[in-house]
């Protein structure tokens, strides 16, 4: 995770549920590179074709509501989404996304700050998001350090892997 994330914005409405992110019929797909072809098929049909790595999603309230499926943030990560910012998130989506190492930021009023295609600049630790075209910005409560560390490690799998490795090394070093 970089301290400053910049990218081109895609906007989304409120209450985009996990079915609109990855439809139920693709839940048996395991390969993320296959999964990413179907991301936002319902909510934002041109996204899977036109998205570029580093693009930023800006959504309204209650983004990612519905089921606990992890396929939704997985598909976004596979496409290379730089960050997901929303007025608010549903609980399990937020956890799943952070755990997969996807910068996920709750910033009240962010949807109103952007039009599609504008460039966003996010300062993770400062807690500020700026529209580089209009110059307008808003502040948000930065993620707690625990979650920033999780993102820096690249997600929960990597963080736990390091932790287990350290444990094993310590066990080997013990007399």
């Amino acid at each position, binding site marked *: 995770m970089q301290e400053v994330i910049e990218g081109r914005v895609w906007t989304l409405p409120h209450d985009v549920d996990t079915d609109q992110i990855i439809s139920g019929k693709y839940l048996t797909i395991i390969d993320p590179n296959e999964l990413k072809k179907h991301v936002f098929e319902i909510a934002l049909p041109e996204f899977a074709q036109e998205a570029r790595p580093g693009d930023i999603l800006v959504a309204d309230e209650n983004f990612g509501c519905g089921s606990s499926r992890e396929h939704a943030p997985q598909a976004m990560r596979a496409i290379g989404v730089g960050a997901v910012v929303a007025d608010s998130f549903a609980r399990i989506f937020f956890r799943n996304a952070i755990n997969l190492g996807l910068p996920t930021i709750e910033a009240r009023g962010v949807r109103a700050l952007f039009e599609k295609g504008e460039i966003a600049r996010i300062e993770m630790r400062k807690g500020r998001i700026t529209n580089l075209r209009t110059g307008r910005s808003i502040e948000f409560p930065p993620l707690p350090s625990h979650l920033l560390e999780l993102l820096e490690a690249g997600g929960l*799998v990597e963080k736990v892997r390091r932790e287990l490795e350290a444990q094993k090394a310590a066990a080997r070093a013990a007399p």
Partner: protein
Amino acid sequence: MTNSNGHGQTLAEKILARSAGLDRVVPGQIVEGNVDLAMMHEQGAQTVAPFHQMGAEKVWDPDRVVIAIDHWVPASTEGAAVLHRILRKFAAEVNLPHFYDVGRHGICHQILAENGWVVPGDLAVGTDSHTNMLGAMGAVAAGVGPTEMAAVLALGRLWLKVPPTIRIEVNGRLGKGVTAKDLVLRVLGEVKTTGATYKAVEFGGSTVEGLSMPERFTICNMTTEMGAKAGMVAPDSKTYEYLEKIAKHPMHPTQPDRDASYERTIRIDVDDMPPMVACPYSPDNVRPLSDVAREHVTIDQAFLGSCTNARIEDIREGAALMKGHTVAKGVRFIVSPASTPIYEQCLKEGLIEVFTEAGAVFTNSSCSACFGGNMGILAPEEACASSSNRNFPGRMGAKEARIYLMSPAAVVASAIRGEVADPRDLV
């Protein structure tokens, strides 16, 4: 009991503080909680890959892991068969003995409840969003994703943001024909589907104290529909009695402080509350059942099942109403007990016959028609009276199909009448 700064703690705060080895926690604080119980169902199959990627070799405590397959039992599609196989292989590989496989199966939350896997003071997590139901034991029980579950299996702990608590204080006496399901629907009508997002819901008051454990399971189950991280009832003599012979590990009984600080307290008086129904397409679209009954909404299917309402008490109550009646022409009535022991009990009490003689289908225990992926699937024009917990578009099949959520008694009344009906109008 009062804390040093004069602000008491809620039940969720106390349980999370204990799980993290802290004296106290405040909402918003991130803690590392030690997990007392981890549960996986079919979605747990996706836990296996990240578990291996983490380089984990063994599960932190195999005696605190339960696998219960329930969505497609026995496997009804090839995809489901593959998920089951992945789980069986994994359980054998890392030596997980508590696997409720086909033949001992049941809905995962019911398996946890009736076998005493979750006890007062526990922090429990499961790969299903209705894990909240187990909060009725006086525990914090929450749904998590599969990667998170992999970390729990490897380390026995997870990060949690301490949620603020909403207290729901219910007083008064439930009238005749009015059930715990009606009560939780009434609460949903008030809190709405996002009203408790990221929050804990703590039920209390004289009505809740009077509820049996199965009824408490029903109300905690549907805190998921409020967006809540956890829903709970403080433990009391009923909790201890229920768990007396079955608790699988030591309890840490916890009560909220008298001066606990709640984000919000909602007071509900049920003295004059009628039976309720949640109309399409949201569990918070709640109206008095008799109002909807007056509109003569015909149904094509009725479903008495799901983790919300398919315990022996629910099925007994349904059978008592069913006796002497038949299922209306043109209605498919599906009854699915929540677990194999409940199925056996129905058999012993002659309840299965009551339903089959009336023209209902009595199935083995599973999630059954609840989620539209296994059986009892609805066509676009159809409507269903259901004792389950969700009625979003597409939940039981076609996205246009309409689901009316209600108590088991109301489901039976509707099956008899062939339209959404008030059980008090029967007899």
